[in-house]
């Protein structure tokens, strides 16, 4: 780990465990002082007349987020490595479902797993019950895990961060989240004021109860719609990146030939035609692996250091197994027929007045043809172009004669 801060906590060493108790102590102390040892204070978040949960949580997230970004910019901490240690990888579906389920458990019990510990510490029996429930629930999940394993790993996106989705530096997203949080804090203060007033009124006059119900229904409807919109917004960019549609880049026969001559060690050529066709004639160095046998090569597990070139027949599609190769994948444009036409056919000698480009091209093709067909001698070089170059007038010798 680079940086000034050297984490003491990873692993189960004594220093790490002492640090754990000290940090936990601070966590529990602050939660209690924020009022999070009481279920009614926590549940109030969902009835909108006391949004302490939201305010505390978002202030904490913003504080730690900005602190981490600053520590990273100053070179005091390795943010990428820390982030991977702190946050789990993203699994879309179990996180969507688990979040919703946990939110339901939150409003039913009045606590979340962490705050139920603080409630227990404050002597609240309902907190003790919630702690017991969480332990029991985890065990129930442990029992059904074999059946739930497929869902538990569905929608896997690996380590994924909001700034990667947005394609901007982390500090830009951090500033955006900060701005959003500040805006939401002002909103939360307004909402609290409205719902506190309603509660005070409805306690006095029964006819206001109906009006309150209407307001509640409207508020919850709006919240539901907002949540659905946020979810769509959150899910869209994620699903857009689900299948990084990898395609093979076409490579022309002459470019492939040039690479084979220049740097054969950087290219692995696979001929996916029938074994017979491949055995008869192939690109030099190509391995004959019919498309159906590709899986046996384990391309998806290869290091991917070399580029991969796929030579096909008339069918120019590249098998999915080849696309799974981690490195760059090329497909020979035009298939083997294009190779045959280019490299295995003797080039025509250019006209004497052909340009320099055509002459260079001829030299290369002749060399390739000679090298690949084993011609004893290269095709004869073209006659030098007769270009009249006026000779410069002879200088008169100066100086002493």
């Amino acid at each position, binding site marked *: 780990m680079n940086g000034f801060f050297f984490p003491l906590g990873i692993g189960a060493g004594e220093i790490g465990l002492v640090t754990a108790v000290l940090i936990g102590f601070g966590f529990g102390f602050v939660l209690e002082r*924020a009022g999070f040892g009481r279920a009614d204070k926590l549940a109030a978040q969902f009835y909108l007349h006391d949004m*302490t949960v939201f305010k*505390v949580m978002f202030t904490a997230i913003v504080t730690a987020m900005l602190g981490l970004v600053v520590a990273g910019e100053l070179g005091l901490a390795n943010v990428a490595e820390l982030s991977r240690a702190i946050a*789990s990888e993203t699994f879309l579906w179990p996180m969507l479902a688990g979040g919703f389920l*946990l939110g339901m458990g939150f409003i039913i*019990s009045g606590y979340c797993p962490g705050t139920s510990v603080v409630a227990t510490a404050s002597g609240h029996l309902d907190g003790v019950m919630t702690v017991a429930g969480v332990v029991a629930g985890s065990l*129930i999940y442990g029992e059904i895990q074999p059946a739930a394993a497929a869902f538990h790993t569905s929608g896997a996106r690996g380590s994924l961060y909001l700034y990667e989705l947005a394609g901007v530096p982390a500090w830009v997203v951090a500033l955006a989240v900060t701005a959003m949080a500040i805006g939401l804090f002002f909103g939360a203060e307004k909402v609290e004021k409205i719902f506190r007033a309603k509660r005070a009124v409805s306690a006095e006059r029964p006819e206001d109860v109906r009006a309150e119900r209407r307001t509640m229904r409207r508020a919850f409807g709006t919240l539901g719609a907002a*949540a659905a919109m946020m979810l769509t917004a959150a899910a869209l960019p994620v699903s857009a990146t689900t299948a990084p549609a990898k395609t093979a880049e076409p490579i022309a026969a002459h470019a492939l030939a040039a690479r084979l001559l220049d740097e054969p060690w950087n290219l692995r050529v696979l001929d996916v035609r029938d074994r017979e066709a491949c055995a008869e004639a192939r690109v030099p160095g190509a391995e004959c692996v019919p498309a159906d046998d590709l899986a046996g090569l384990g391309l998806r597990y290869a290091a991917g250091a070399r580029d991969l070139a796929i030579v096909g027949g008339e069918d120019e599609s590249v098998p999915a197994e080849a696309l799974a190769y981690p490195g760059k994948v090329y497909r020979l444009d035009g298939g083997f027929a294009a190779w045959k036409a280019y490299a295995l056919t003797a080039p025509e000698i250019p006209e004497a007045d052909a340009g320099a480009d055509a002459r260079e091209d001829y030299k290369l093709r002749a060399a390739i043809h000679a090298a690949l067909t084993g011609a004893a001698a290269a095709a004869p070089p073209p006659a030098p172009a007769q270009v009249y170059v006026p000779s410069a007038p002879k200088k008169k010798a100066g100086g002493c004669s």
Partner: protein
Amino acid sequence: MTTQTKFWNPYLAGLALGAVLLASFLVAGHGLGASGASYRLGVTALDAIAPAHVAANEYMAGVKEHGLRDWLVFEVLGVFLGGVVAAYTAGRLRPGVIKGAGVSTGRRLAFALGGGVLMGIAARLARGCTSGQALSGGAVLSAGSWIFMLMVFAGGYALAYFVRRQWR
């Protein structure tokens, strides 16, 4: 313990919580958590009763490697101690059940237990709870953590109307 200290201003409490969270990141290289410790506690207890059953379940057997000698378990022990000290010094450490007038104690306790069971399942499914996923993962801007956090609020608001009598 007759006079209670008022709760902190939410924004100042948030600042303090953020400082603890940041310290946890930088000093321990670890996020704050809770449900992971409950899981370890449960599996360890079950292992004492039915070791063969735990050994047969790959998902649970993995916990046994260092059992309760785990960062999160000790952190949650600290949460409990910190909670006790904070509640005691604020004059709030007293046995009781937090509930509204419209619900019986038995019903409230049953709800607390049931909600806890739901959260235990949900936290395993989502690889963390409000502490580990929403707070810690949210602060490092993990995409999954933010999806999880939005869903927690969505789930809470979706059901709040139907359990409102608990708090009145």
